[in-house]
């Protein structure tokens, strides 16, 4: 299958990356090259094979359900491009 310019625009939007319309043909072409490379995987018989989720069967670690960390508002906000009154500040989200 081939990616059209419209689909490239859609993928860029899903990824929240602004792409100029003028750059869409090149992007579509690059993505197609990569997807074509991936299509080799269609040669493999994967019937009855479970998708691999981890390299070692490992039980997820558990710990006591207690507070172990916190009270670090200053540190959490320290790297924010815009923090005000103890919150992260962003442009208006709701009209």
């Amino acid at each position, binding site marked *: 299958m081939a*990616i059209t310019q419209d689909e*490239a625009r859609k*993928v*860029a*939007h*899903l*990824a*929240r*990356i*602004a*792409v100029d319309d003028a750059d869409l043909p*090149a*992007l579509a*072409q*690059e*993505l197609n*090259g*990569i*997807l074509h*490379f*991936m*299509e*080799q*995987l*269609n*040669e*493999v018989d*994967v019937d009855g*094979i*479970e*998708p*691999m*989720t*981890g*390299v*070692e069967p*490992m039980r*997820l*670690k558990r*710990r006591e359900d207690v507070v172990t960390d916190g009270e*670090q508002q200053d*540190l*959490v906000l*320290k*790297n*924010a*491009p*815009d923090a005000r009154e103890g919150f*992260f500040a*962003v*442009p*208006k*989200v709701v009209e």
Partner: protein
Amino acid sequence: MSDLNKLTIAEARDALAKGETTSVELTEACITAIDASGALNAFVHNTPEKARGMAAAADARIKAGNAQPMTGIPVGVKDLFCVKDVPSQSASRILEGFLPQYESTVTQNLWDQGAVMLGKLNQDEFGMGSSTENSTYGATVSPWKLEDGVARTSGGSSGGSAAAVAADLCLGATATDTGGSIRQPAAFTGTVGLRPTYGRVSRWGVIAYASSLDQAGPITKTVRDAAIMLGAMASVDPKDSTSAERPVPDYEAALTGDIRGKKIGIPREYRIDGLSDEIDALWSKTAEMLRDAGAEVVDISLPHAKYALPAYYVIAPAEASSNLARYDGVRYGRRAKLGAGDGVVEMYERTRAEGFGPEVKRRIMVGTYVLSAGFYDAYYNRARKVRALIKRDFDQAYASGIDAILAPTTPSAAFALGSADSSNPVEMYLNDVFTVTLNLAGLPGISVPVGLNGQGLPLGMQLIGRPWDEGGLLNLAQALETAAGFTAKPPRWW
């Protein structure tokens, strides 16, 4: 003692223990070397004052008789390890100005042992690349420059780590390996690069690329140094849910020099078109060396090997698209300048368009596509099934009694900077053909320098070990290192 920066970790440790030198002297030698290494562009954030303080503390600790193997040893840190209050950008513009408020477990382990932090090392942005050209800091230049004067790559993504160790700017460096990013740069620079078993080293505080593949390890001058440094980096870490509950053994003690009776597999599927004749010849020669040292060399089959690369380039971008969603201009890093009336979506889209480099954007979008409705099964799930088959190939090889697998690390020696065709990203991906398989299977692997090609550039061979058997793998690697007797160093031009 002169040229202290040229010592191996083991030599420096022994000299420190005997009082023949001090960590302050070692550290000054490295700082002097780093200050004169601007042309390599390996160190990108230097921390000399921090280093001097840590060195003085290490000397006091040695004097008090509390030294551990890495106490007083000056090291470099790949940019993507979070170090408290030191820029940690993963070579991305989007993390410009970011100062971590916590410490990665790997670096904390090193500092707890008394290692000395010299600064941060260049890499491909978020680990995505094979040449350290995809970096907001600009490319790293390999110290291996021949009479032709061509600027070559030190590999990637850990190209800064490999160049710094090869040029004696530090005694060892941390690195990470998602698809070959420790082993390929090591092979290109005549250094040793060890990628441990997935789960051996904590990923806490390591800026993520693809979480099911990422694993940190050392780049060093010798196999013994890799054993020492891995011992300091590895730990069982409650902060990383994929950190294995396995005690860290004494890797240096595993270096017995005796590999008699070990069984080495040669995978026939790795004899690909495009493999240079020199590397093919070196492969046979190194197999012979291991045989001479008492190992048994047998042919094995890894039937799904050729599908590792396409499977990797589905799975890694898929995980990256999810991991890198966090860079939104809200909580840390760089936010794009907004116009009046711009909303939150414009902020996300512009911040990410400006902050990420072209290869990172490409992989995020590929990942977004293969995970999107309608394509998830066709690409992502199929790739994960192929991954299961690739792992089964290895499981079967090891079940048949193989101790390790010998293969080239790369299909060719280091290439010139700027030689990649930017309109054909797949070409660059082919660099990883021998390295990605073990990432998919979670296995440990080590690249050992074994010779120079006709031009005079270093070549590496890779040993792939059984899961959790880094000790046995290091012992085999040291036998290969001893037999190959690689001692070449790049003549200094920088």
